[in-house]
């Protein structure tokens, strides 16, 4: 503990020298401290710490705050959602967290994916829409579409969706890890098309068809995930209330987007067909047909709506060379 008088000396000198230049500071310090090297080094070391550019205090507090908020994010683990117990986190999206849920009672043993939405809680209108949409999605029954099993609200009102848990890998990883031939890739792709056709007949558009939304099981069966979920998360019907520039609200994955998604125009079944074309291109060439340099609106419009993609055959040859 520093004696009171000494502390006041240090404090007063520190404050006088706070905003002085280097030379002035040295002169002043020498004059004020004289032979008192202790005083001088005390003030000098304080001034040195004051000169640090980054706020390390804020950083330490921020880390604690972040850890505390993350703990809240994990708070559902171990809790029950309907008949399911949440056991781990499968993944995070910008607007949702997907948990692995398990049902383990006398009747069933079942693993599910539970998607807990955050975004929906912010839009009252979206919430009410969610309920009717969930109903429609639950009627989709196709071997290549991951089923929506159940839905509801957590105790605090956060909506969740319980979906079939698919044990597999994304379709592009599956094709590449097994170095499938073109014919095998196309056979998989045709199965995906059949699932999309089934959904379209039931008036459901996927809106976010991309490799990471199509899993292939160990047995080689493709499963489309998140059918229609994109609509719940990024509804165009609300887009007129959102600034046009908020691109992420409208479109989840620019690499697979159709032109109408970039331009903010109505989404139809044609949007999925377009995305299927992009998917096929990716499966055959290993690349997106778009050359995106950035996610700026201008860049996206140019790459997706104007530029002609390199022909797949040329792309493959270019890659071989």
């Amino acid at each position, binding site marked *: 503990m520093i004696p009171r008088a000494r502390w006041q000396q240090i404090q007063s000198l520190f404050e006088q020298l706070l905003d002085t230049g280097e030379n002035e500071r040295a002169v002043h310090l020498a004059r004020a401290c004289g032979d008192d090297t202790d005083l001088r080094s005390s003030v000098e070391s304080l001034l040195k710490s004051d000169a640090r550019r980054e706020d390390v205090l804020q950083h330490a*507090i921020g880390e604690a705050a972040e850890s*505390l908020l993350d703990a809240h994010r994990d708070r559902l683990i171990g809790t029950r959602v309907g008949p399911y117990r949440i056991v781990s986190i499968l993944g995070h999206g910008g607007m949702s967290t997907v948990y692995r849920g398990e049902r383990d009672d006398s009747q069933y043993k079942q693993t599910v994916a539970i998607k807990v939405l955050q975004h929906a809680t912010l839009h009252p209108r979206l919430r009410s829409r969610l309920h009717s949409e969930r109903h429609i999605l639950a009627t989709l029954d196709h071997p290549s579409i991951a089923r929506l099993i159940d839905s509801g609200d957590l105790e605090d009102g956060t909506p969740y969706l319980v979906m079939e848990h698919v044990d597999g890998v994304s379709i592009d990883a599956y094709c590449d890890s097994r170095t499938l031939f073109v014919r095998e890739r196309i056979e998989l792709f045709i199965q995906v098309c059949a699932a999309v056709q089934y959904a379209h007949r039931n008036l459901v558009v996927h809106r976010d068809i991309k490799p990471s939304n199509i899993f292939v099981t160990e047995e080689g069966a493709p499963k489309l995930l998140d059918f229609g979920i994109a609509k719940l998360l990024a509804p165009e019907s609300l887009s007129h209330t959102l600034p046009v520039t908020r691109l992420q609200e409208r479109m989840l994955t620019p690499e697979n987007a159709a032109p109408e998604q970039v331009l903010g125009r109505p989404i139809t079944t044609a949007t999925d067909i377009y995305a299927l074309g992009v998917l096929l291109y990716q499966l055959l060439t290993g690349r997106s047909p778009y050359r995106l340099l950035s996610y700026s609106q201008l860049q996206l419009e140019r790459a997706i709506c104007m530029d002609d993609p390199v022909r797949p055959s040329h792309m493959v040859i270019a890659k071989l060379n």
Partner: protein
Amino acid sequence: MQVPANFTQLLTEWRSGHPQALERLTPLVYDELRRLARNYMRAERGSHTLQATAVVHEAFMRLIQANVALQDRGHFFALASRLMRRVLVDHAKSRSRMKRNSGVRDLLAEETGEILPPIDFDVVALDDALEGLQQMEPRLAQVIELFYFGGLTYDQIAAALGTSAATVHRDIRLARAWLLNEISGSGSA
């Protein structure tokens, strides 16, 4: 949002020496943080620690604004920032000292062009150092709490403490420098 009407009541009880009030206060802070954490989760990009801190500060403001008469603001600001410090530090301790503060790069003092060694510390070390500062100069510790844990501006702190924003700014610089020296072990002051 409904802030429980007894929040300020509990704060006062806690301060006047009823530790059991803290047990009832902490869940209120957690509830508020959880509510706000949803917004935080939407913004996945950018500076995480800054966002997280902003959430804490927002929770602070929302909790304190309920049912506090203007003339009592300063008093309750002080109590609530102390509470926020308690919550963060207890959380960090419960995680058996969080991963070390490795995110801070070597810092360059522009004035001298000198490379300063990185300072490695977490909120628990900061809490200890603040205790020391509290012993020596309670006003400085108070200003640090209000600024860093409560997220108040210089003007708000000045109004709460009945001083000027310029004085607050000077106090923060002195206190911060002292704390950094103390934590990094170079404190000869």
